[in-house]
């Protein structure tokens, strides 16, 4: 057997995405970020949670590259650990969202009918609401903290993925190869798992990628409102939130995490762009 219907997106596509200069720079930043997040304890001599109050508000310098915060903790260290929180929260939240959205969207798109109409109506309505509002209300219900934030972000983006998956499924459903498969005696399960979902995956992956960027911003915004990860666990939003009060005394406390968020989200978007090109079958033909 050859690899029948196997997922062949990840390996080759990532490679292709990385080959474009934009994708490479963006990819490099993301890889570095993940590396830093994972190995934070080995990369920095400081602790993220041990306070050193006399040392508070040290401006960026040779001792503390990015300065210290209001408790005298090294800001670079906290940003590195913050990357852990922000990246985990946003990827897990989007993961939840993608999974549920794909299930819902696929079911709605494939089986259609009343279920589809109900799903579409709800999804369209929530989709029109800003994610931040949905998330704020959900956090109010679930309670702040990492779990609450993840669930809230996940639900906030659910509509987007349901919509997207449904649209994809609807489009692919009318392709002749689905009918061909049916004419050979394929079951619904086969059609869904082997044709519809794999083919719908590429745009969903890209959307998920871009949404992860948005989710980082959303996480930061919730953190800004004090609803994100609870101290002393650092998150980028939390850092900015505490930085607001120190904006004049120590502007770096708010500026630097914001830059980290912006650059990361920017990199994710660039990488997403590169992925779009890499995943586009027609473009691939043109390149070869």
């Amino acid at each position: 057997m050859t690899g029948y219907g196997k997922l062949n997106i990840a390996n080759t596509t990532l490679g292709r995405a990385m080959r474009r200069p934009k994708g490479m720079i963006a990819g490099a930043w993301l890889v570095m970020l993940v590396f830093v997040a994972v190995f934070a304890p080995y990369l920095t001599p400081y602790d993220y949670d041990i306070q050193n109050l006399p040392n508070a508000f040290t401006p960026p310098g040779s001792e503390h590259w990015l300065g210290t915060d209001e408790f005298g903790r090294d800001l670079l260290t906290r940003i590195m650990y913050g990357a852990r929180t922000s990246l985990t929260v946003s990827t897990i939240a989007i993961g939840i969202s993608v999974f549920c959205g794909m299930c819902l969207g696929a079911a709605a798109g494939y089986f259609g009918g009343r279920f589809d109409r109900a799903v579409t109506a709800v999804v369209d309505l929530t989709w029109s609401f800003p994610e931040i509002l949905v998330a704020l209300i959900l956090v109010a219900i679930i309670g702040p903290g990492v779990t609450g934030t993840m669930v809230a972000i996940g639900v906030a983006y659910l509509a987007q993925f349901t919509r997207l998956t449904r649209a994809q499924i609807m489009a692919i459903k009318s392709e002749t190869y689905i009918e061909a498969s049916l004419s050979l005696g394929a079951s619904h399960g086969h059609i869904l798992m082997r044709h519809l979902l794999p083919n719908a995956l590429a745009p969903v992956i890209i959307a998920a990628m871009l949404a992860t960027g948005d989710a980082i911003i959303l996480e930061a915004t919730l953190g800004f409102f004090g609803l994100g990860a609870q101290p002393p666990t650092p998150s980028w939003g939390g850092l900015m939130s505490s930085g607001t009060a120190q904006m004049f005394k120590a502007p770096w406390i708010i500026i630097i995490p914001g830059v980290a968020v912006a650059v990361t989200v920017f990199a994710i978007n660039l990488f997403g762009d590169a992925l779009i090109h890499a995943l586009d079958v027609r473009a691939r033909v043109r390149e070869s």
Partner: protein
Amino acid sequence: MSEPLVKIQTLSKRFYTPGGLLKKPRSMLAVRDVSLSIARGDIVGVVGESGCGKSTFARLVLRLIDPTDGSVCFEGADLTKLRRRDLRKMRQRMAMVFQDPYSSLDPRYRVADALAEPFVVQGDRVPNGRIADLLTKVGLPTSMAQSYPHQLSGGQRQRVGIARALALNPDFIVLDEPTASLDVSIQAQIISLIQQLQRDLDLTYLFISHDLGLVRYFCNRIVVMYLGAVVEELPDPQAAPRHPYTHALMASTFAPDPTNRQDTTELTGEIPSGFDLPPGCAFAARCPNVTARCRESVPVLSEGPHPVACFHPL
């Protein structure tokens, strides 16, 4: 005449455009009361203009969609009444080749995967060498097994489509305009391949096309459809047309012969929409020989060796 391989009786299909909360639902009869028997080894052609229900008919015959009315018996078994599991087994015996070779292959499946799919969905293992065998049968190099569809030309894709249809050794194949989107030179290749396969494998074909010239060359028997209904059944390809529509179709086919130029067309007017058919003969609006009766009552297909549905056949 022995028991036909496929026996189609008063098959109808009504499509409903979903009415939303805001739209009135509408419905159209895409296929109306079509009856047809196909004997083993037969090549039956179905011609008609775009939108007259040919593809719908093809899908009905293989029960890819459920008919509104009527039945399809395959070797005596009524497909419309079969249970899901039995139907799936039955699908090994029949297959379909599709119109658009560009969308009939999953872009993510290599040729080998596409050819293995029939076995997979039937829960079987792919017999050794079967894929190479199939490729050879349709005239493709075996090295092509590892190619993706986007690396193939239209003709090559259509060959893969045919190979996939042949994979489970079916008796009966429905070919829905298999050459409509191909170049004439490739069309001829594919037609000759299909013809040769029919002879070699003793297949039965239902061949759908809008090209009367091609159907007359290729088929033993021709069914002419107009707006979902059969208007004429030509018992042999060279039979003279009796329905004015068939006649017009024939006259519209351009013969590749500059010395024999036709300079008139008989047909004027527009094909009515299937959603609101006028009463009477559906062809009345375009028919050169139309009478008052045509506008009032619907002609039925006559009995006999050369059935036609017209009040004043030629």
